[in-house]
């Protein structure tokens, strides 16, 4: 990571550690938009990380999303950052969803968005809705707002340099590795504190091994995401994103299951913070293509490349 990324990561880490607590997360799930938190994002200029004239690029953007995921920041940050990069920076939040007929569906925080962008899988053209009409409010399994908004016939269209879907899939993967890091760290902390049979849980080999496996999964997931980020300027970007999204999804399944087991009943309560992270990691597996979707894309490409070229594909750059 370069100096600039480090500064963004450090500042954002502090900002979200201070600004995101359990009460805020609970409130966000009842539909209360965290205005003060959004104001501090605006004040630091983080809403334009990755935008052309911000002096930052995709590397910084994904590093920022990792940090946001680690705090389960209940703002549509990936949406806002990409929308600002693609359609120009505005001061309000943006949502991005998928075009479905005359609607755009699964729009994060569509209800408060000042702008909504619709993507069409397989197309580099996006639609931009500047006057947002919400048709239905919904949420994913993490309680994050996912709304349906109207797509007017005269919506602006913008052709991007590349298909946005892989970039958005990688955004969810980047948020997920942040969330998974937090899940693991929480489980490590809890295992070191909770005592049963006169010893902390961390003394039990079964618990040690479970945490070791979780740590390996988190390390793999994180490595996969940064590899994809580092490949974005190559013609393999989409394949590396497929690797990352699929690998992170598998890690999320394993880590969340095992971490809940370490926590026992307390981690199953609504009062505990753990579920804000595990439910997000679960939900994000499904957004912008789940593991199977990306495995099939990748597998199909490899099959077409042919058995004797599998290795050169795997080692390609």
């Amino acid at each position, binding site marked *: *990571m370069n100096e600039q990324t480090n500064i963004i990561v450090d500042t954002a880490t502090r900002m979200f550690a201070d600004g995101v607590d359990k009460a805020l997360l609970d409130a966000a799930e009842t539909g209360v938009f965290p205005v003060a938190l959004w104001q501090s994002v605006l004040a630091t200029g983080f809403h334009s990380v990755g935008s052309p004239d911000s002096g930052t690029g995709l590397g910084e953007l994904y590093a920022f999303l990792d940090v946001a995921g680690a705090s389960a920041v209940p703002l549509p940050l990936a949406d806002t950052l990409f929308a600002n990069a693609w359609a120009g920076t505005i001061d309000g939040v943006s949502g991005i969803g998928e075009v479905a007929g005359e609607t755009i569906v699964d729009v994060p925080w569509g209800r408060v968005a000042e702008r909504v962008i619709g993507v069409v899988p397989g197309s580099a053209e996006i639609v931009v809705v500047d006057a947002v009409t919400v048709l239905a409010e919904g949420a994913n399994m993490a309680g994050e707002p996912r709304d349906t908004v109207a797509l007017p016939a005269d919506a602006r269209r913008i052709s991007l340099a590349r298909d946005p879907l892989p970039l958005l899939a990688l955004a969810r993967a980047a948020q997920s590795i942040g969330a998974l*890091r937090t899940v*693991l760290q929480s489980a*490590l902390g809890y*295992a*070191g504190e909770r005592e049963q049979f006169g010893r902390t849980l*961390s*003394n039990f*080999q079964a*618990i*040690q*091994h479970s*945490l*070791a*496996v979780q*740590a*390996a*999964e*988190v*390390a*793999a997931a*994180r*490595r*996969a995401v*940064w*590899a994809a980020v*580092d490949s974005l300027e190559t013609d393999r970007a989409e394949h*590396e994103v*497929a*690797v990352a999204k*699929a*690998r992170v999804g*598998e890690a999320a399944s394993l880590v969340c299951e095992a971490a809940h087991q370490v926590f026992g009943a307390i981690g199953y309560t609504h009062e505990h913070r753990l579920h804000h992270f595990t439910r997000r990691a679960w939900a994000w597996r499904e957004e912008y293509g789940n*593991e*199977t979707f*990306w*495995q*099939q*894309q*990748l*597998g*199909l490409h*490899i*099959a*077409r490349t*042919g*058995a*004797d070229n*599998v*290795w050169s*594909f*795997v*080692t390609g*750059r």
Partner: protein
Amino acid sequence: MLELDRVTLPEASEALRAQVRAFLAEHPEHLAEPNSDFTTGHDPAFSRKLGERGWIGMTWPAAYGGGERSFFDRYVVTEELLAAGAPVSAHWIADRQSGPLLLRFGTEAQKQAYLPPITRGEAYFSIGMSEPNTGSDLASVRTSAKQVDGGWVINGAKIWTTDAHRNHFLIALVRTAPPEGKNRHVGLSQIIVDLRNDGAKVRPIRNMAGGEDFNEIVFEDVLVPEDRVVGEPGNGWKQVTSELSFERSGPERFLSAFRVLVEFVRMVGADPAPHEAAVIGRIAAHLMTLRRMSASVAGMLNDGKQVDVEAALVKELGNNFEKWLPELTRLAAPADRDARRAWRTAYEQTQLLSPSFTLRGGTREILRGVIARGLGLR
């Protein structure tokens, strides 16, 4: 350790990749039985050819025949050889761990005597750690060496010693002094045994895949000269644990089953069913991630960093991957018997080898313990 370095292989190492591929294409006679397990092909002629190319001892000083190249270069050469199913077993241990061990701890005379022939692909080493009553609990070794006039006398037995019946030397972990109370780590030493001339009795043990790769070695008053102790007598524990981390992070820890993937891709063809494509993609996503992780560890080795925990991470994930890769292809394999033939051969070979993946080089449970220690849990 939750974060491995974001390493990209340097251009120079990538250029080397093309050379290795060209070399392999020129020598199809050595690739008769495609299998990417690093222990199944023992081919001295092939090892000597690699030696001529400078592809053994690549990172070692030129003074001992080494190439003074980066760990990235070595990473690329080893993964290319394994993926092609090249027979690398003869020189593998010497190149991967015995050489680096001698380089780090050996006497000057030992380095001069043993390292150059290793780099030429002429001297092969085996690892003498396990014993009939010593597996994971390595400090419990009972094979002993007593100092006498003119050298050391070894008594005891080693077991599971890969390629001892075909290799030249063994580096045996032996007890040279009693433990100090509860501290069993003192009094251990590593001694080089000449497997062909010192009088140790080597007997191959057939494995469940039908191969005769590992052995039992019995020592009855085997006398070896004074200068065979690696480094200092009594320093064995420190040496053996440092050696183990070289053993754990390389591409041989996740490529053993690679040929099964290749044959699966061949079997399903260019127009796979969705579930077949998903299996290929799933395997590839893991494989590509493991490569990055292993390269990250190569980068740490390059920087002279301690890698035991990171290496354990790679081995843990890699060995599990090698085990479920064949299984995933089996469950997705189409019923057509003719189409299945090549895949089935690779699958069956690998499946039969697979129990060893999470045992050799430290068991899954031991590695998880190493990772847990790195996490501060023990």
